């Protein structure tokens, strides 16, 4: 009997092959197996025979929306910056999308990064992706040579050991607190949709930090980012970060120094998180890409929570709603504004 993932893989290949053969799309963006266990890599199938390389399992942690604009661009005929777009419809791309990825595509459509007509979204309901680092921790960071995935458990093998792990124990934190596992926009569907999830304490991790006092929070923040090596993997994995020149690469003015000085690192993380305010869908690609295990998703999740509290907005759920920082209401809360005669907190 085949597992859920094997069924999905077969289904993906079928859909992708059909789309490519009928010439509906010029490329299909999915995942293929990486060279080491538990690492999947994004893969662009451009010919019908390529689809055999497509795979689906619980390690598809990166966000495919991140690659979508580049793949679309690569299919356009070459032209100089100011040349007009060629006439006629441009080639389309098929792409897999779980809940958060599809929401990121909604954000990209709103920000004119991709065109809805040029993507064919193949929706999959996400069962939660597995955190590689959690699996490694379960086997005391021994070398893992093979991981066999079944529906509810992982069988991890290495030199001299075999261990069975409950799948839900090693699912990523953001997937555990996810309430939107189903795609928001899609053209094709693979498998059944779950119909949404209920999570008891959705922002429990944020609440925990908010409950600390200010000095404790500062200590927590310093410790969290202290191991940062400024590789910018979090930025590169993020589908929201598409600026041609990122603020960290700007030299005039230089907003953030390039060293691993603690202030520079702090400013980088503050600004990176803030740039995602009202846009981040908590897909967790940044955290999964981080080689140092920094939980920078907590920063963006705080902004997510505030956007919900202040403006009742969740990114990417509705395509007809403007992003929260590109709009305003006259009655927006402004209790943080200093009023005349109002005294600060007594220390």
């Amino acid at each position, binding site marked *: 009997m085949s597992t859920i993932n094997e069924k999905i893989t077969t289904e993906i290949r079928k859909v992708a092959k059909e789309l490519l053969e009928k010439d509906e799309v010029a490329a299909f963006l999915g995942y293929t197996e990486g060279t080491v266990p538990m690492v999947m890599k994004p893969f662009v199938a451009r010919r019908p025979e390529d689809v055999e390389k497509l795979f689906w399992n619980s390690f598809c942690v990166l966000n495919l929306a991140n690659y979508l604009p580049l793949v679309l661009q690569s299919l356009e005929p070459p032209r100089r910056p100011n040349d007009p777009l060629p006439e006629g419809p441009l080639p389309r791309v098929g792409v897999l999308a779980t809940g958060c990825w599809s929401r990121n595509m909604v954000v990209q459509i709103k920000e004119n990064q991709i065109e809805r007509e040029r993507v064919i979204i193949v929706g999959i309901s996400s069962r939660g992706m597995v955190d590689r680092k959690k699996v490694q921790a379960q086997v005391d960071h021994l070398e893992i040579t093979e991981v066999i995935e079944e529906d509810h458990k992982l069988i991890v093998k290495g030199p001299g050991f075999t261990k069975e792990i409950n799948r839900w124990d090693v699912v990523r934190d953001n997937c555990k607190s996810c309430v939107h596992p189903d795609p928001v926009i899609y053209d094709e569907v693979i498998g059944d949709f779950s119909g949404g999830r209920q999570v008891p304490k959705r922002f429990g991790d944020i609440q925990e*930090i*908010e409950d600390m006092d*200010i*000095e*404790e*929070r*500062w*200590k*927590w*923040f*310093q410790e969290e980012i202290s191991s940062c090596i400024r590789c910018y993997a979090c930025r590169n994995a993020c589908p929201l970060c598409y600026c041609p020149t990122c*603020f960290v690469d700007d030299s005039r*003015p230089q*907003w953030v*120094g390039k060293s691993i*000085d603690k*202030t*520079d690192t*702090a*400013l980088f993380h*503050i*600004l990176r*998180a*803030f740039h995602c*305010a*009202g846009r981040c869908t908590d897909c967790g690609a940044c955290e999964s890409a981080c080689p140092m295990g920094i939980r920078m998703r907590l*920063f963006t999740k*705080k*902004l997510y929570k*505030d*956007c919900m509290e*202040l*403006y009742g907005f969740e990114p990417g759920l509705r395509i007809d709603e403007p992003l*929260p*920082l*590109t709009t*305003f209401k*006259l009655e*927006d*809360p*402004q209790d*943080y*504004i*200093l*009023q*005349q*005669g*109002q*005294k*600060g*907190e*007594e*220390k």
Partner: protein
Amino acid sequence: MEEKREESWQPKIIAFLCNWCSYAGADLAGVSRYQYPPSIRIVRVPCSGRVSPNMILDALRSGADGVLVSGCHPGDCHYISGNFYARRRFALFKRFLEFIGIEPDRVNFTWISASEGEQFAQVAREVTERVKRLGPARKLVKEIEPCPQ
């Protein structure tokens, strides 16, 4: 450090004031000879919507003890809606700074119109008082460590 905490210590506060209301308000405070502490360093910006979190962080990194951002009252913006966008941006930003452990009184926001010279002096006194209570800002100041000998 201890020396700085003395009563005579004056904080350095960077104030981003919008050209149309708050800057004129500060000007009015000046010509009307309202007294306020000399801790405020004014940077004139076209609109409070021009102020980005980068600029606030840059001020803190460069050694400012506090930041004040002031624009026109909601509805009075010279550019119709700049301060409404700013209001959303800074609501999130201020909450975020508090979340990571920057004292809430370090970064202040207010609305001051061109006719509110007295109010400007009042806000300047108040912000100075708040920042004084916190003492010098060290958290985000970038310090170059001396080379190990």
